[in-house]
């Protein structure tokens, strides 16, 4: 039996956890936990706002010592440790499935080739995503973001990546890699070894524009620039990732993945000689 919860990974924004209110407003009735690290200076405020049953604190240093940070900057205001700690927390809570959400989502919607519609039945939307996670054998399934739809429907409804909304199973643990660009590092590095990560573009979240909100990862990006962020993924997979200029509203460096060289293809079983 599936035992599911939504985790909101948050840091330094106890009065601005936008995702929490949106989940309830849009019909999610299951448990919500705020995942906060023990070095957060605003931790008391989280407890005051949300209560001790909702806020779960993890030991950031202990988690940092377990994972591959990919640099020696000793940055602590990063999300990778919360992502990795989520699996342990989920197991402790007796969950089978969980979703990792950022704290700044203001929109959850379905999307066809042309336009999106706000979902007012998130319970069902989460359940069908978990159904696909179960049958596909994927390590994680995610929803798309606004950026996935720039230029219209690409013809790819299921992408081989996962960002932001990580739907996970406790029994399919994986480790997020690197203190920055941890999502890209992980889905490319694990993906080239045959683990599956999917983004379904028929479902979408939207969040505050990158580097527009104070706190969280924004400070790291502004401090180090996006070159370090993007180049971290090159370090992990130099054969398929490079740094390129992204020409959106604000020009910035971004990772560019050569997908044909990044992850093995999924082929129909009938191609397998023994089953033909």
């Amino acid at each position, binding site marked *: 039996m599936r035992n599911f919860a939504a985790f909101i990974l948050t840091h330094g924004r106890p009065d601005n956890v936008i995702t929490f209110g949106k989940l309830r407003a849009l019909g999610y009735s299951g448990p919500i936990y705020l995942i906060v690290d023990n070095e957060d200076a605003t931790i008391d405020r989280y407890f005051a706002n949300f209560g001790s049953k909702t806020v779960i604190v993890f030991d950031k240093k202990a988690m940092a010592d377990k994972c591959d940070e990919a640099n020696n900057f000793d940055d602590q205001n990063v999300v990778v440790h919360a992502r990795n700690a989520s699996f342990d927390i989920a197991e402790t809570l007796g969950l089978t499935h969980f979703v990792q959400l950022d704290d700044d989502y203001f929109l959850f919607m379905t999307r066809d080739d042309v336009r999106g519609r706000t979902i007012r039945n998130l319970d069902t*939307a989460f359940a069908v995503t978990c159904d696909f996670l179960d049958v*596909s054998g994927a390590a994680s399934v995610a929803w798309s973001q606004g950026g996935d739809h720039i230029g219209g429907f690409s013809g790819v409804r299921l992408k081989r990546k996962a960002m932001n909304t990580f739907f996970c199973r406790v029994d399919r643990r994986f480790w997020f890699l690197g203190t920055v660009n941890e999502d890209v590092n992980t889905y490319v590095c694990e993906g080239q070894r045959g683990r599956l990560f999917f983004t379904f573009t028929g479902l979408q979240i939207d969040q505050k524009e990158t580097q527009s909100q104070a706190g969280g990862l924004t400070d790291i990006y502004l401090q180090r620039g996006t070159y370090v962020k993007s180049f971290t993924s090159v370090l992990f997979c130099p054969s398929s990732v490079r740094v390129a200029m992204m020409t959106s509203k604000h020009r910035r460096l971004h990772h560019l993945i050569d997908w044909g060289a990044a992850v*093995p293809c*999924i082929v129909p079983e*009938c*191609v397998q000689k023994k089953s033909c």
Partner: protein
Amino acid sequence: MTFLRREDKQEKYTTATGSPIYAPKDRNPHILELKDNSRQQVLLNEINASRVTQEEKLFLAAAAQRHTVFNYELIADYYAHATPEMQRLMEASALVIIDIDQAIERGYVRLCRAVRDLHMEEVAKDA
């Protein structure tokens, strides 16, 4: 909405629109086409010409393999034409992923249907 439209281009295998399942092509590529190790070769030449220790050379040579660029579509094409023994070894090395019992394909179609229903519910509410 085109969630479930069938593609016309595929000849041998058919997948749902937007599906991640790759349909191998009829052409069997030469095995030398499956990877590009030109960057690796440049690095190896520099390593071999250097005066670092033999142990260091071995380490650097292993690291240089990270720059080999695999063409996974051609690898899947090659897989489709390979002997059963070669196929098993390619599977073990995760050079292809097999969609056993069409679990991914069918799960994807079910997901599309469910989300289409959700979408149409919201459209109806707004009508």
